[in-house]
């Protein structure tokens, strides 16, 4: 555990050692604002809730989270520090966990910095703060899922660009798994069970449930197990690279 924390600290500090963190946070906040106010017409809705705001999260994460995750392993591999990390007496899972948690905490910081919008709705009306809290929790969990996918993909390559592009594609498929674009491919031939399973993988469906204030254990388990699954894939990929 101590080792996980040591790696977490190093990784987390690494984001802020370069302008990456600041650039990311500024773009994240600007994009959130732009989507919510200009495209989502937050004011015109006249509703004191953050539904519009949360509605855009999956789509923003789709690009921004892979940008956070792409460097996690690809950079280590390219710079050769991977050799250093893996020859220190640290189990691979501890490195994977430390890195993931650092990146997740970083996206958490970015997410927390959207608090002015929460202040705004509370100033303008009487929103249900429980629902908003659920929205934030769901959003954070979903970011973790995107991140776990990006981290695992980052471990397969030395190129951050490849890691980014592939992560965006994979995350996109997970996001819209419930949409016709994906389902139509299967509907013609696959059994209904399979089609339903695939649509059950949709981030959108699970996130919409949480962000509307319905905290269903199944949605939490869904994101939680997805995170664990991809972290395990990450461990396996790192291990495989040793013998490859």
């Amino acid at each position: 555990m101590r080792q996980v924390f040591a790696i977490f600290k190093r990784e987390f500090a690494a984001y802020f050692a370069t302008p990456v963190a600041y650039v990311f946070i500024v773009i994240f906040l600007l994009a959130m604002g732009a989507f919510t106010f200009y495209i989502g017409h937050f004011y015109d809705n006249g509703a004191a809730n953050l539904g519009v705001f949360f509605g855009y999260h999956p789509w923003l994460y789709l690009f921004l989270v892979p940008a956070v995750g792409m460097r996690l392993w690809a950079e280590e591999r390219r710079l050769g520090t991977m050799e250093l990390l893996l020859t220190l007496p640290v189990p691979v899972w501890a490195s994977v966990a430390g890195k993931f948690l650092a990146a997740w905490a970083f996206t958490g910081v970015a997410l927390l910095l959207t608090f002015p919008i929460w202040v705004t709705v509370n100033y303008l009306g009487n929103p249900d703060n429980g629902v908003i809290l659920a929205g934030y929790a769901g959003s954070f969990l979903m970011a973790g899922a995107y991140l776990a996918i990006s981290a695992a993909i980052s471990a397969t390559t030395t190129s951050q660009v490849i890691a980014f592009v592939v992560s965006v594609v994979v995350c996109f498929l997970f996001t819209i798994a419930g949409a016709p674009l994906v389902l139509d491919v299967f509907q013609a031939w696959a059994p209904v069970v399979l089609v339903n399973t695939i649509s059950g993988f949709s981030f959108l469906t699970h996130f919409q449930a949480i962000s509307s204030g319905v905290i269903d254990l199944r949605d939490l388990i869904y994101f939680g197990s997805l995170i664990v699954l991809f972290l395990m894939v990450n461990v396996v990929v790192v291990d495989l690279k040793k013998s490859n």
Partner: protein
Amino acid sequence: MIVIEKLTRNFGPIAAVSGIDLNVAKGEVLGFLGPNGAGKSTTMKMIAGYLTPTSGRVSICGHDVETDTIAAQTALGYLPEGAPAYGDMTPRHFLKFVAEVRGFRGKEAKRRAAEATARTELDPVLDQPIETLSKGFKRRVGLAQAILHDPPVLVMDEPTDGLDPNQKHSVRQLIRQMAPEKAIIVSTHLLEEVDAICTRAVIIDRGRIVADGTPANLLARSRHHNAVTLTLPGRQADTAAAMLRRQPGIAAVDIVSRNDEMATLTAFPKANELIIERVSQVAVFEHWDVRELYAEAGRLDDVFRSITTPDAERLRERAAA
């Protein structure tokens, strides 16, 4: 303390390391030599647990690297090729990080980091980002990281690469100081380094050990071992060479260099002959104006060249395979 048995590693069809056996005991400093691509770094990566062997095993202080990785790595200090380190960190933070990951806390972590800093003379750059440091300092950051936990086993891939002569000297001094307490493997291209710090030299070529002995043993295999080199006026060179060739015990005489003024000759002995006395007697008798006359211990690069495969040939074979 380091036991390597039948260690083999293939990359696709290419065997980078094939069947290496090696034991390194406490107090030994083993110099690992070989041409580029001979398998030195691959072997070291397997010792450190970064690469999994295709077959064979490595153990460090009794811990199998593959099955008991963490215990083995705890006993090991490893300087990877090129001394990688996190460029955005300062040496101070980097060493603190390594100390924490290695399980040292608070004061102990600080003390370890400070000691490693002092031994590698890193003080002047402690608070500069590592990526801004010179090659020599970067290398020393890597060294500091490797010795921080005072490990019983040290494996260093080219620890003096890119250092200036002063820095090389201090790194060698450091290795010599630590040597009695540890088992050390050092890879190098610099044959003089083997002479300077190693108690044992192993040459590998195409993934196999082709020579293993003390540096003196290896030198004895050199053509120059006990050869005699003399410098005299250029006009006397030809007669001197002819005269020496006729002496018993002398196998060959080379004129190494000559210009209008001076020439340098090397006389090579037949097996197990000592010829310096005879050469000097002839020189006196013939009244050559000798400026220099000395016996050679042998040249490691001779040995190295005679038993390893040049790059081009190796690549041709690889392409054929």
